[in-house]
């Protein structure tokens, strides 16, 4: 059954080819059948493969499928080959399933759009590229999927191409991530030059033999790969593209944030964790960047008015948690949080999309309010997603994965308590910002007319994702709460478990209790400030706080800075040199010959006396040279 593996990316790819080749000439129902069906079938096959993989694990706990040899030049012979192991299995399942639910939702959400077929073509390609990325056995093929994902994000963010702002957001996404990708390309080249292969298993085998821990080359290679990961996963300093990426249709945001794209960086680091362990400085940088990003984005999320931008910053922040886990060496926790995040973030986006669809595409949360009565399903789904994001204790999936990350940070050797504190503050702010959205959008006074008009294709994904956002975390629970270890045991073959620390179970329980308290406190604060509007909340209106608000609203001024340091100088130089300075040099040659032509032609006066004079002068000069030289 494992031999079906190639079909999981091939089916969405086929869907793309069909939709691209027919170029919008298929009727909408056929488009939906191809677009949704291809990903659905892919999910079914993923399920069959998973069942087969778990019941009869292949030898060595991995399955390798070679499709063809891509390039063969001497020792450089990357293959188009897939590798299924527990890590890619988890990724594949999440991508196909969440991807399928988003596709199903889109078939209704996008109905009537003139680009219906183009939409599904790009969405299918997106899923296919992401599957190639996670299944690739070779870094070059991984990079192919990686770039494919970048392309699809460009196509979908700029899907409504008539508005130039959407095009700008789309280009920003592609260009900013491409900066990271270029670092990654150099990293690939460095790895091949030094280790003689790009096949991931061989690389991970050879790296520790070739390089001692902390060696300069290992550090450089890890840093370059990290560059790629920072771009795709929208971490500081390459995070600026993601908030703007909200220009695309809402299901696109769900797909980018939950199942594909932004988690690629997390996957890459987890996949090449051996390399990062050889470069402790870079691994520490991963943790520090994660911690900084999660805080920075959480504070920005707290200040957004746009419903989708809140969620966008939330994603940056949550990916920051995953980076924190990776940097702390809690590899499994990062992947666990990737999975639960995929569930609740997809749910949040789809629920938000359902809300905005019913209120005439209004994005500003302060123009909403009181919607829970009119849109009960969207409200319930969003509430569940919010609870899971805020990691409300015991009943949500987000609680278990975030707890695992915080515990991993606490017990990690390098700066553990500081990382943990950053995560804890983040947890508090997360609960505040997401429940701010809940209270402002769904409670309080009704401000906008709402008409519930969603059918089963929207309702079913919301329901299924709600269940997953609540129950998806029970596959891994801490020692104090049942001590289920199904998830980490599954991944143990690929990702090293964190070394056991001699911490008393009581410590773990205390740490967990503090985090739970932080989450609940956050909800309570949001309630006081945004629903009860307690008097202390008037402090928010003071000018100092307002200034801070504007700063955080603008994402800490990164866009402002990049605009001045990078974009404007580039534009200035490009405009200045539009007519090509080098050409001016050649024009100068042409000009001077024209001028000298003009002057020399004046000597042709036709007067014999002048000519004779020149003859004499020339002869004298020649004689003088001959005599004196």
């Amino acid at each position, binding site marked *: 059954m494992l031999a079906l593996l190639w079909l999981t990316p091939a089916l969405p790819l086929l869907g793309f080819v069909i939709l691209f080749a027919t170029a919008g000439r298929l009727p909408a129902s056929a488009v939906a059948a191809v677009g949704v069906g291809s990903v659905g079938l892919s999910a079914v096959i993923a399920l069959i493969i998973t069942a087969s993989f778990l019941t009869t694990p292949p030898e060595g706990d991995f399955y390798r499928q070679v499709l*063809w040899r891509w390039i063969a030049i001497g020792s450089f012979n990357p293959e188009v080959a897939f590798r299924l192991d527990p890590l890619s299995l988890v990724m594949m399942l999440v991508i196909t399933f969440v991807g399928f639910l988003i596709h199903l939702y889109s078939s209704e959400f996008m109905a009537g759009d003139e680009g219906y077929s183009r939409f599904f073509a790009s969405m299918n390609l997106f899923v296919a590229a992401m599957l190639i990325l996670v299944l690739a056995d070779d870094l070059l093929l991984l990079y*192919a999927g990686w770039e494919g994902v970048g392309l699809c994000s460009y196509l979908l963010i700029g899907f409504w*191409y008539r508005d130039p702002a959407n095009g700008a957001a789309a280009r920003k996404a592609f260009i900013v991530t491409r900066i990271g990708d*270029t670092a990654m390309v150099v990293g690939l080249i460095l790895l091949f030059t030094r280790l003689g292969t790009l096949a991931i298993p061989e690389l991970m085998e050879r790296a520790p033999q070739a390089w001692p821990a902390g060696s300069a080359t290992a550090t450089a290679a890890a840093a370059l790969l990290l560059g790629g990961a920072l771009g795709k996963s929208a971490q500081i300093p390459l995070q600026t593209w993601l908030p703007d990426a909200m220009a695309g249709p809402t299901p696109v945001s769900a797909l980018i944030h939950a199942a594909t794209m932004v988690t690629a960086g997390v996957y890459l680091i987890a996949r090449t964790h051996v390399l990062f362990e050889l470069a402790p400085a870079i691994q520490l940088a991963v943790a520090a960047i994660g911690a900084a990003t999660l805080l920075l984005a959480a504070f920005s999320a707290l200040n957004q008015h746009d419903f989708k931008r809140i969620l966008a910053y939330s994603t940056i922040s949550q990916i920051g948690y995953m980076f924190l886990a990776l940097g702390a060496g809690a590899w499994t926790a990062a992947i666990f949080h990737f999975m639960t995040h995929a569930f609740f973030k997809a749910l949040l986006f789809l629920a938000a999309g359902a809300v905005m669809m019913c209120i005439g595409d209004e994005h500003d949360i302060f123009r909403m309010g009181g919607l829970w009565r009119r849109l009960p399903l969207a409200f319930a789904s969003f509430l569940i997603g919010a609870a899971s994001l805020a990691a409300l204790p015991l009943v949500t999936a987000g609680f278990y994965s975030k707890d695992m990350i915080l515990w991993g940070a606490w017990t990690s050797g390098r700066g553990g308590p500081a990382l943990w504190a950053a995560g804890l503050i983040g947890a508090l702010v997360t609960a505040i910002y997401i429940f701010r959205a809940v209270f402002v959008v769904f409670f309080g006074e009704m401000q906008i007319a709402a008409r519930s008009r969603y059918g089963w294709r929207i309702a079913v994904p919301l329901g299924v994702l709600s269940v997953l956002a609540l129950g998806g975390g029970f596959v891994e629970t801490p020692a104090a709460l049942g001590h289920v270890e199904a998830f980490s045991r599954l991944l143990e073959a690929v990702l090293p478990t964190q070394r056991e620390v001699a911490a008393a179970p009581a410590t773990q329980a205390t740490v967990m209790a503090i985090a739970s308290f932080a989450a609940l406190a956050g909800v309570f604060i949001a309630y006081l400030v945004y629903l009860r509007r307690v008097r202390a909340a008037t402090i928010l209106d003071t000018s100092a706080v307002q200034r801070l608000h504007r700063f955080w609203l603008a994402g800490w001024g990164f866009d402002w800075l990049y605009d001045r340091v990078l974009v404007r100088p580039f534009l200035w130089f490009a405009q200045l040199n539009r007519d090509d300075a080098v050409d001016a040099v*050649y024009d100068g040659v042409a000009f001077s010959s024209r001028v000298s032509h003009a002057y020399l032609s004046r000597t042709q006066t036709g007067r014999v006396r002048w000519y004779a004079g020149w003859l004499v002068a020339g002869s004298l000069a020649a004689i003088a040279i001959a005599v004196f030289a």
Partner: protein
Amino acid sequence: MMLASLIIIPALGAILAWRSERLHPDAPRWIALGALAAALAVTVAVWMHGQDGPWLAETNWSWIPQLGIAFRLGLDGLSLLLILLTLALGILAVAASWTEIAERTGLFHLTLLLTLAGVVGVFLALDLFLFFFFWELMLVPMYFIIAVWGHEERIGAAIKFFIFTQGSGLLMLIAILAIALVHLQATGRLTFDYFELMGMALGPDVSLFIMLGFFVAFAVKLPAFPFHPWLPDAHTQAPTAGSVILAGVLLKTGAYGLLRFVVPLFPDAAMRFAPIAMLLGAIGVLYGAVLAFAQNDVKRLVADSSISHMGFVLLGIFAWNALALKGVVVQMIAHGISTGALFIIVGLLQERIHTRDLRLMGGLSAQLPRLSMIGLFFAIATLGLPGLGNFVGEFLVLLGSFDANPPLTIVAAAGLVAAVIYALTLVQRAFHGELRRSSSAPDLCLREMAVMAVMMILILWLGVRPQPLLDTVSPALLNLQKLDASHAALTEHQP
């Protein structure tokens, strides 16, 4: 005979096409297609039934024995691929300018086919004098293509093109005569034969100067920074078929010359010069990309992007290892197809909306969805997306060059970002945004779709299965490197 026929068929076709215009205005087109298809068939036949070893076929006829000049042709994998590209792009160019060229069709196809015959000759000649003959042969008809059927500023562009290539060609002629004379002094035999001249030992200064003569000629043609200013003018002003042949094929003669002559004939001098050449390559990658970004004329944008792509070629040639050289070959083929396709798209666009000015375009996706979609496809190919041919070329070049010169390779890699910027700017300004100029122009017709489909399949095939192509060119490149190595070994024994 087979090889000579590759030159004779297009040349005969040229004369026939010219004379046939009086029968029917479309007759020259069909004759041109027929002649190119016949030449293509012969090429494929040689490919299939070629002799073993690096040289698939050879011809060596006596021509002017008194001066040591022979009609010597040879076809190896490198020549084969470039000739295939030449003929295929020739066919596509004829098909794509079916409606664009309405006047003097006979004369147009005469000049087009003569250019192609010259190019094929360049890729085959193994006698330096013969090579120079073909080098000049392809130049003159191209001048007329630009000057007669070009756009608004065609005369100036044609003259610029002519002066740049002719001036640098003169340097090459001097270099050819110099190397022949040095050989005459050393051995007492006057010859222009490639293989005989190759084994010769030259002093370091002499070899550097003679090499530079060749280098400048080829660097102008490539074009390498800072010899590029003729290119944007010529490409922009030429008619579509002219631009396709210029970008797709003529630029490759520069790269071919570097590969075939500069490094094998002067390995030591070339290696000493390599850091400078690679620097020019890396600068070209970035400079061309920034230049392309700023243009308002869409055709000029595409033209400038060629400077960037050819920077990779120059970088890879002077890295001179198996990875980089194969990358160079893939890059040349992929650039020929993708940039050729972009020029065709621009031509189709100009036929429909009568402007090349990006400031007047915008939103064409709504009106010309097929054309816009295909334009997007090739813009993406040009920015080097994996799965399409250009990526394979660029990645292999970078991979190989890193061995030779890491810092310059990293500089060139920054071109990957710059490429995204200009390619997406092109897409945005032409196809996206609000529709500026509404007109009733029809979308692509069946003939145009067929041309585009062929090119899309080729570029995809190149990106996904480049191996057959790599295998074809492998013995040829190995042979070039071996010649080079044995020569280097020879010179090492000299005091």
